[in-house]
């Protein structure tokens, strides 16, 4: 049980990191906004688990891909904002190209349309 669970989060971790970085490309945002953006732009298919969002944010900060500061949210509440760093931007490019390769490969295997692009 525990094992499969951890494998799933393991897989999610990589994509979640990438999605967080992607979200931050349009500017700094705090945790709540990030979750909301991901959910909205996935047409509510992906529901961000808060249990992994915050450790992921801290991890990204630890790797210097995002930086953080405390500021006021749009509703004028104190919130911790995350901002993409130059290093994070590079990482996003790398991750994105890897992701493209991966999805293309999977599409090819699955014999789906667009795989031949």
């Amino acid at each position, binding site marked *: 049980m525990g094992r499969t669970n951890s494998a799933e989060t393991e897989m999610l971790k990589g994509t979640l990191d990438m999605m967080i970085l992607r979200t931050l490309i349009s500017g700094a945002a*705090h*945790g*709540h*906004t990030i*979750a909301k953006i991901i959910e909205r732009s996935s047409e509510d298919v992906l529901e961000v*688990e*808060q*249990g*992994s969002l*915050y*450790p992921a944010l*801290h*991890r990204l900060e*630890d790797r210097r891909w995002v930086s953080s500061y405390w500021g006021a*949210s749009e*509703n004028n*509440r*104190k*919130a*911790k904002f995350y901002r993409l760093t130059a290093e994070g931007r590079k990482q996003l490019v790398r991750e994105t190209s890897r992701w493209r390769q991966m999805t293309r490969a999977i599409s090819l295997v699955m014999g789906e349309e667009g795989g031949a692009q």
Partner: protein
Amino acid sequence: MSWLRFLHRKRSDAELKDEIAAFLAEETADNEARGMSPDEAGRQARLKFGNAQKVRESLWAQNSPQPLTRIAHDAKYAFRTLSRTPGFSIIAILIMVLCIGAATSLFTVVRSVVLRPLPFRDPQQLVMLYEFHRGAEAGTQDSQYRPVAPGDFYDWREKTSGFEDMAIMRYAGYNLTSERGELPESVRSAAGSWNLFQLLGVQPAFGRAFTESEDQPGNTVVMLTWSVFERRFAGDARIVGRQIHLDGKPYTVVGVLPSWFTYPDAGIRLWVPYRADVSPEFLRAHDHHQSKVVARLRPDVSLASALAQVGAVQYQLHLQYPHDPVYEDVAPRALNEDLARNVKKPLILMLWAVCCMLLIGCLNVANLLVARGAARQKEVAIRSALGAQRAILIREQLMESMLICGAGGLGGILLSVTAPQFLARAWKDLPSAQGIHLDGAVIAFACVLMFAAALVAGLLPAFSTTGKKMMSALQTSARTGASSVSRTALRKSLLTGEIGITVVLLVSAGLLLKSFLRLRSSDLGCIAQNVLTLQYDLPDKKYDTPAKVNAFNEALLQRTRAIPGVHGAALGNVVPGAGYWGDFVFTVKEHPPLKPGEELPSALARWADPGYFAALGIPLVSGRFFNTDERGSRSYKVIVSRQLVQQYFAGDDVIGKHLRVPAHPHPQAPDEADYEIVGVVGDTSYQAGQEPKPAMYFPVFEGDQNGLMLALRTDSDPLQFSVLVQKQIASLDPELPVSDVLTMDQIIGESLVNASLSATLVLAFAILSLILASVGLYGVLSYLATQRTAELGIRMALGAERRQLLQLMLFDGMRPALFGLALGLIGSVATTRILQSMLFGTKPLDPVVLTSVVGTLLGVAILACLAPAWRASRLDPMKALRTE
């Protein structure tokens, strides 16, 4: 990175808490905007977020590096296990504190004295230079290294360029008198060439060092060392530029040396320029071997090529003076090695002894842990049945020994803050120039010891308890006995090892002790009981003629001989047993001249008054003693020792023959140096335990010896007379300081303090090891007895007698002891060979030592076995059968 995260995890958690609060607030606001009631909005927000605690925990775990958490966990677990049996833990920790502390303390001394360079500028560029006598008896390296003559030194310095600079120094002594009425004091001093302090890189604390122009005959400048500056001059820096009185002459203080400067030893109180107080003849002499030379290498010149240059100059000098003791080569020696020469060997020996003790301590702790492992066998078996990996179980058990040794190591480091100071005080020969203290290397050493000890003490028991036989462990738990065979065997072999090492230590200690006792009671060749000695040094200025010197000496002799209870008084420059002091080379006038390259005869130089030999009980072999009128120009007489006659005259009749001693010319006729032999006396040793050397005695009434030693033979405790004698001296000259008021026994004791200390310390280590080993033996046997309770009960029920049971248990316990003894004796044969060179009058396989060691060990082993065996034999069979 991860370490940083680990350190910041508290802050990171606090931030997360704020973030969560912010998220909930945002979400609640959103929900409210969607039209929910405030309560419902908050509830929905919390529902959406999920378990906040879990989020915090996962971040906390993400911030804690895995291995560290595991170690912390193991340590906590081990700490709890250990604190459940405080008695065991305290004993084990104490053993480790003692063993690691002793090893670290000794290492501190070794590091400070042998390994750490002296605290000078670029110390690796400094070397001592000695004249090297290839022809000296091989084997004894010390006799090949000769102190340097000033004439040789000045030639080296002038004619070679391989060294950046060279400086020369020698010991001296002064009477420090004062104008303000302080007591006169005789102070040990040193004379150094002007460039010495600059060469060593030493800056005076106050004032300045000597200048080149001050390093000339007749100059009266002086530098103080910190000890005398603080004690006698109250640490007042205004002393610089003022005058002090040495031997009655005013000297100007130019500087004060810093407090850390105790080179070449801490006993030096003053420094004067090398050339200041000597005659120009002395400075030109190539045969006055008294001085030490320090040289600083040029950075671009290798030691070998610099030495080759100096060696070439020296060889030229050797050829130039074929009939003087001018040696043919030079040899270098490292500065700290030069100081630590006498203590290196005993130090290394003690380090070995203490390492043996440490090993025994580790084995003992291992033994104790094996016993504990037995008690936890079922727990371990159940855990491994439930899937615990062996590696994890071993790691856990290792953690216990790690904690024990860690605590032991910590205590040991604390111990070695103080213990080396004590050792340094007790051990007079220990060079003090480096300062003995803890440093990083010592702490690193202690840590390495700690880990090594933890591994040795922990791995064996850990492997033995976590073996694969978990099923058998589970099965046999009901009936004790069978399961523990292999573990008992392990404990017994550990014990055998312990006892073996203890035997080696005991034998070494016994040999050293016996050798020391031999030394202590060795015959000096003269009377040593009830003899009081004291030294005084008549200042040149006041006693400027032989007549004045003689007048004082004769008056003193007369007065002291008149003291009731004094049997005799001897006046000379030194008494037997008080050290080497000095020798002269000589030729025999009546013999054909020596062939070139032939070794010059040499003999110890001594001065004696007519009553000297009778007072000290040195027998007259032939001829006569000195007469009281052999003084001044009529004093060209000499008395030689029997060994000199045998060695250089092949036992011929020597009375009336002449010795020519160029280093000691007649006072009134510097070109004449012939001395007529008037008597032959018995041999004496210059130091206890040293073979007597040829000696020649000159009349003390020549009147040119200022530093003198008076010896009184008394009929009871000689120290009672010391005040009386000093009063007599004060009544003759109130300004004259007296020094080193000692009995002959004390002099001998002092010269043997090295031997006594190493014997005592090694004995102490050996006895501690013996205690540890017997505790181990006792522990194993008690354990064995409880293990076999049921078995013994059955035996008793079947009719075994108590005596038989006692025998059974005793034999069982004695077997490892006997094996260990045999092993240890074999080991001793090997190790005592190394000891041989340190022994005096004792063979490495001394039967007395060996039998007493065997006896002691057997006795202790029987005692340790007896208690558990006795208890086992007193068992109530019914109770024994009912256990379990």
